[in-house]
Each structure stands twice: as C-alpha cells, then as structure tokens.
C-alpha cells in the first residue's frame, strides 16, 4: 500500500513552514532604560550596541523636521531641547489626564490640555500631538531594529515585561504600542516574574522567592513559588510612582537650594538631575562624592556624604519595605520562609536599599545577574518557551481585583487579586426596584471599596428581562480572564436566559479606529499581517488533521475499505499540496472535505469500541496503560473516575 500519509508520533504534529516566521525577542520596556534580549543562542543574550551597552535610554527626541531619535542620541539632546524630548513615558501609559494632576508641573514637555477626543493623555512635542502609546512604539521600534541588525533576521514577536501592578489600561496601552511597532505580543510578563525566570534557569532551586524590583520610576515586589519548572506568582504589590528618580529628585532639590535657585526652569532642573544622578552613582562605592552643576555655563561645586543621602532617601526606602511586608502577608508566609531574594533595577545598587532588603528578609539578596538586564533575559527565555511550547511554565495571577458596581457605588469583587489566570468566576446579583427590566453592568478594577476610588473599565447594559419584583431576578455575571489577562464579562438573567456580553477594552485605551489610523500612518502592513496569520493558522490546522488521520490509520487502518482509503489518500494528497501553497480558503475547504470522506471510517472505529465496551472492556481500562506521562496523577484521576472496572 502506498504511503501517501506521513505518520507522526501522537502529539508530534510538526509546524509547517517553520522558517517563515521571524524570531521572538524579550523586551524590558523600562521607565528609564529599555533592554532587548534573545534566547537561547545557546545562552540567553542581551543585544548590545557597538560600545557593548545593553541599556537603551527610554528617551525619544522629536525634531521639527519630523525625524525621531531614540536612546542615548535622544538623551544627549535633552539639555538643549527639553521641550521636545520625551522621557519616562511609561508613567503615562494608560493614564487619563485626571490621573496626572500630581505629575503635571513636573513634566518638561507639554501635555495637550484641549484634547477631548478620548481619555488618554496626549503630549505636544515638535508641533505634533502624540499619545504615550506612540512614543512607546518609537522605543519598541528602535529595539526591534537593534535586534534585527544584531541577529540578521526578521523580528516580529516579543514578550514584553510590565510592572506587576500595571492595570488593564496600561497593559492594553503596552500591547497597542507593540502592534504599532509591528510586534506581536506573545505575552505581557510581569517584570519580577521575568527576573525570577532568569535566575530559575541557572540555579534550578525550588521554594519561595521574593523579587525586589526598584527601577527608575517604579517599585515592584512579588513572592513567587518555583516548583518543578513551574513558576507560580503567589502575591504581588508595588507602587507605580516610587523609584530611583525620586532619589535623584531629592538630591537635585538640595543642589538647587545650595545654588540659591527657588524657581528653576526646565534647563536648570535637567542639569540638576543629571548632576544628582552622577553623585548618587558615585556614592554607591564612596562615602563622599562631589559634582559640578553647570547651568548655562555657570558652574557650582557641590559635595554630598553617603550618610546625608541615606537620611534623605530613608522615608522612600521605608516605603519599599512596608510594601514588602504587606505582600508577604498576602502570601501568608513569614519573611524567613523566603528562600532567596532577587534584586532587579539599577536602584538596588544603592547600599541603603540593599541593607534594608537584607534586614527585612534576614538574608543577603541575589545579585549575580546585572540587575539592569535580568528582566530582559527572563523575557527572552519566556519568548523562547512560548514559541516552542516547552521550558519553564509561568502560572500568572491577576494583579488587581476586578468587580462590578452595586447599589450606592460600592464595589463587589468578582475576581479578587492574586487569583491564578486563566480563570472564570461568576456571581449572582439581583434587582433593587420593582418592575426593573434592565441593569447597567459597570466593570471596575482596583482594591478599594468604592467605585470612584477604582478604575472604570467598561459599562454595558443587560436589557429586556421581564418585569419582576425587586430581588426576584437572578442576574449571573461571569468574568473570564484568559491567559493574557484579557477580560470578557458576561451577564445573563437566569430565570429567563436573557444575556449580554462584552469584551472589555479599557476606556483609557485607544479606540480601534484610532489604532487602525495609527497603523496606517506608521506604514505597518496590518492587514497583510493578519492575512498571513490566518494562513499560518490554517496550515497548522491542516497539518493537525493529516497527522490525526495518519495516527488513526496506523491504529485502525484495517477498518477502512480500500475505496475509503483511496478517497482519503486522494484528498490528503491535495491538502498537502494546498498547505505548501498560499490559498487559505483551499486549505480550509480540503480540511472539511477530508473530514467528510473520513466519516464512515471514523464511524466504524467508534462502533467497534462500543461493541468492545458492551463486551465488558472499558476503554479507560484499555487506555490506562497508554497514558502519556501526565504524571501519576493522570492515571489516578482515571482510576477514580473509572467506568467499567
């Protein structure tokens, strides 16, 4: 018999046309600096510039002539053109203007005050009106270009890291930025989790780990459990507005005071911050350090002792350990149960920070991997794991509680924070007025008890259920969060089955129209990419169907008549050719055709199994010996549920 069908081991369906996809990278999109890495090559590798620098300053300069500079080039332009140089844009991701009152006076670039088009904040730079999403996309584009130049291949997918407490709006904004830059986001991974991944691979240790991440602008602490190659996030916490920049600000304020400047302009602030940072870095090793503050050619000399610095920043450092304590309490463990502490972020180089961490946990933290690069390394490892379907598995939790508004503006939580995802949880609500036939479902995110203290994500109406007495209706609201943290909310009235559903797109995100407009403007070929992806899906599906038929024929081939075999082989051959081609509809059509001609054969296989079952053999019994090594529990589950024995 001719072997038109290739037979593969069960579960080993090969992915057709592997080479056609670009490579996937890991990106740490930081407030101050960003890093891109790839894995494994054979070791994970940070992609550096020709000077060996892995850090790309997260700074973008917009020139009047329309040219865009990212990284150290943009940072160099900051002193002379601060109004058109955007730094720390990460702090604005997913923020509405109302969120920014506290930041307003401190930003060197202008926020567009007239904008009413949407809730998202906009920046006015170089005569352009930009969203933080577009600025982040420019940074991502530069990282993508660096990766493509270094690896000499197309880069089209990425794992991007975000702070653990980033809410839905900020996560969506990050995703949108990646799309604009022509990158498909394989997964947004929490920064501390990525750092743990980088260490987990090297040490192979098991137990509970705390990840202490003090970056330029954000603070994160997480407790993770590592068990048999699986990372589980047990609890997370943090502060979106606490970081090494605050240390710089404290020093800069003192410098300006010493200089006698009460109302510094932008240039003075920038210059003072730059000097402050140099002094802070010098104080990592020295007890005393000096620096020159140069504002428009007028120079003054300043010195600072490490002790003085520590007095200045002590309240900030205390805030980090207070957050550590509450996360530990959330995790339900004692500080001494933590088997290791991983340090992340350049600000963990500050000696007082290290001392505070060591004191709190009662042990010295790990710092073998450069704390500025460890997150990108972990992201790269996860990008590898997600494209290969192997390696370390990440079990993530939702960082913030999700709930709906009830009477009086009180929030009823449906999914509490730190719940493992993906997850689907339901709660029942009822009406509060006689004759009520509709209900507004207001979806919110946050830890507070009242709606106005939480972030509003979406609103939708459940309408048209019959009039009932107050409290008689049974409205079941289901929240489903997928592995990527995308939320779908479903509401239905149970006595009548009236239903409504919404995919939550945070109100601070960009609308689909805005997104498409930007995609066009950025000349990325969105539609082409989509068509390509659908074609790849169809090819994978076709490969799956061919392999499944191959396995079936190998197992029960005798049950097919020669005519059936010929018919199946003929369609299979056409499908194989179609998979090599470009016509997605043809692939899908032939998949259906193959399933159709294979039906009598499938029916005979089922009939035989039923007859065997009727003869006293349980199929589960037959399979028991063939269970894939799903761990002994798999077999145990089967035994417990055994039907025939």
């Amino acid at each position, binding site marked *: 018999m001719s072997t038109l069908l290739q037979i593969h081991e069960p579960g080993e369906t090969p992915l057709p046309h592997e080479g056609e996809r670009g490579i996937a990278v890991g990106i740490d999109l930081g407030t101050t600096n960003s890093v891109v890495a790839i894995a494994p090559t054979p070791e994970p590798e940070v992609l550096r510039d020709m000077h060996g620098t892995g850090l790309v300053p997260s700074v973008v300069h917009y020139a009047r002539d329309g040219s865009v500079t990212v990284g150290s080039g943009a940072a160099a332009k900051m002193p002379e053109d601060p109004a058109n140089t955007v730094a720390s844009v990460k702090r604005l991701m997913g923020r509405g203007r109302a969120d920014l009152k506290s930041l307003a006076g401190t930003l060197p670039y202008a926020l567009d005050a007239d904008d009413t088009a949407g809730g998202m904040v906009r920046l006015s730079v170089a005569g352009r009106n930009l969203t933080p999403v577009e600025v982040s996309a420019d940074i991502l584009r530069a990282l993508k270009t660096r990766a493509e130049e270094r690896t000499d291949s197309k880069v089209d997918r990425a794992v991007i890291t975000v702070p653990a407490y980033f809410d839905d709006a900020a996560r969506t904004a990050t995703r949108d930025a990646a799309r604009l830059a022509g990158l498909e986001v394989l997964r947004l991974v929490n920064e501390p989790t990525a750092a743990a991944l980088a260490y987990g691979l090297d040490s192979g240790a098991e137990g509970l780990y705390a990840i202490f991440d003090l970056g330029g602008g954000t603070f994160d602490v997480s407790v993770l*459990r590592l068990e048999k190659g699986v990372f589980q996030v047990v609890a997370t916490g943090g502060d979106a507005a606490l970081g090494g920049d605050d240390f710089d600000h404290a020093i800069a304020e003192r410098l300006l005071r010493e200089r006698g400047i009460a109302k510094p302009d932008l240039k003075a602030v920038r210059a003072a911050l730059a000097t402050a940072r140099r002094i802070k870095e010098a104080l990592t090793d020295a007890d005393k350090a000096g620096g020159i503050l140069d504002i428009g050619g007028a120079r003054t000399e300043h010195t600072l002792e490490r002790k003085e610095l520590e007095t200045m920043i002590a309240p900030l450092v205390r805030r980090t350990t207070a957050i550590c304590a509450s996360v530990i309490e959330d995790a339900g463990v004692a500080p001494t149960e933590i088997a290791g502490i991983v340090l992340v972020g350049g600000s963990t180089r500050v000696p007082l920070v290290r001392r505070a961490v060591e004191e709190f946990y009662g042990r010295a933290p790990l710092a073998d991997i450069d704390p500025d690069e460890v997150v990108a390394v972990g992201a790269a490892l996860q990008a590898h794991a997600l494209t290969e379907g192997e390696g370390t598995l990440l079990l993530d939790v939702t960082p913030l509680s999700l709930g709906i508004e009830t009477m009086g503006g009180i929030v009823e939580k449906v999914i509490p924070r730190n719940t493992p995802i993906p997850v689907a949880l339901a709660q029942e609500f009822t009406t509060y007025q006689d004759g009520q036939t509709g209900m507004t479902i207001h979806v919110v995110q946050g830890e507070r008890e009242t709606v106005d203290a939480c972030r509003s994500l979406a609103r939708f109406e459940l309408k048209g259920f019959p009039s009932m007495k107050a409290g008689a209706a049974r409205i079941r609201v289901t929240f489903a969060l997928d592995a990527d943290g995308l939320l779908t909310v479903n509401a239905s009235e149970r006595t009548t089955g009236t239903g409504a559903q919404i995919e939550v797109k945070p109100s601070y995100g960009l609308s689909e129209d805005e997104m498409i407009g930007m995609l066009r403007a950025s000349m990325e070929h969105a539609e082409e990419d989509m068509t390509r992806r659908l074609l790849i899906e169809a090819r994978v599906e076709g490969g799956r169907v061919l392999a499944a038929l191959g396995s079936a024929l190998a197992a029960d081939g005798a049950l097919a008549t020669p005519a059936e075999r010929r018919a199946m082989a003929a369609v299979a051959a056409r499908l194989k050719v179609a998979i090599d081609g470009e016509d997605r509809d043809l692939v899908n059509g032939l998949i259906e055709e193959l399933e159709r001609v294979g039906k009598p054969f499938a029916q005979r296989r089922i009939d035989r*199994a039923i007859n065997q079952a009727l003869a006293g053999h349980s*199929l*589960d019994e037959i399979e028991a010996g063939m269970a894939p090594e*799903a*761990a002994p529990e*798999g077999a145990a589950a089967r035994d417990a549920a055994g039907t025939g024995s």
Partner: protein
Amino acid sequence: MNDTATDSAADGNGVGACWSCHGPVGRVALFCHVCGALQPPDRSDHFRRLGLGARFDIDDKDLLRRYVAFQQRLHPDRFARKSKKERVLAERHTVSLNEAYEALKDPLRRGAYLLQLAGRAAPTEEARTIDDHDLLMETLERREALSEAASLDAVATLAGQAAKEEARALAALEDAFAADDLDEATRLLTRLRYLKKFAEEARARRAVLAEQPA
C-alpha cells in the same frame, strides 16, 4: 467543530469520539491514545480533577504538586505550536484546574465544598446571622475587647488567643470530617469563618493603632 452522529452514537458506553481523529476515546481521558490530541475537560468534581478522592484531610504539598504537574501538561502555553482548537481546550482545562486548586487549597473553602458535594448548604458566604448562641456571645465579647484595646500589645494578645482558637477548631474540623459528622463540620466552619473575620479586624485595628502618634 461539527459534532457528528458518531459523537451521540457513542453516548452512554463510556466511549466518546476524539474531536481530532474521530476515533473512540475514553470519557475521562486527557489525551487521545491514538492521535495524541488534547480532549475537552470533563465535568469532574474539584478533587477528581486533581486526582484525589473527596476528603478533607489532604496534604498541602501534595495538592500543590498535583496542581503543578497537571498544569505542566495542560496549560495553553504548552500548546504554542499546536492548533488553535487545542489551545482553546487547554485554556478550558487550566481554568478548571485553577478553580479546583483555589477551591481546595484553603481548608475553609475545602470544607464548604465538601458540604456542598454532600448536598448541604455551606455556611460560608451568605450566612449573615448566627444561629449558634454561644458563638454569637463569644464573637460579641471578642469584638468589644478589640475595640477597647488601646495598645498594639493588647491587640496582639487578642489576635494570639483567636489564632489558637482557630487552630483548635481546624483540628476539630478534620476530626468531624473523618467521622463523617457533617452537622459538627457545619458548626465548626461557621465558627472558623468568624474567627477568620476577627483576625482581619484585629489587623485593621493594629494598623490604626500603629499610625497614631504614641
């Protein structure tokens, strides 16, 4: 997926049809033994989903180990190179596993779930009144003492007493389930719920006292 006559024809014999190769597959199998495709999750209870019998006395470490082992095999990330259908099924499995693990890892929720399996109303979420008169008096006294506690030490003493009570009640709950005494288990679960709530109140009180200038 077009559910065919083959699927329904197989009903009731412990045999289902694999959605991928259309051959016979066991109702509770995770993977098809012929083509290796992941099968949809069945409607197991939470214990069975993790390969356990329905009992209160389970080892935390063993539970975690099982949860992790199943996730290793069933998580959607493990199906990155597989077809979309399998990734969707994997997601359903993981949702069920997460639900099962969350329901079982906390003794209170596990106890409530066992009562639910036995067809009894669990005394956790909704119960707003206390039928148990002794528990009512004890709870009121405890709360009064807490609201009067003026120092962190006093709060710590009260919280410590409550924690001891909680440990004792938990041990008794284990015995009650072992003896299949569901009335006693129900009573103890209610008691534990109030002790837990008290622990939260004590934490809040502690936070208030800690913030006040000495």
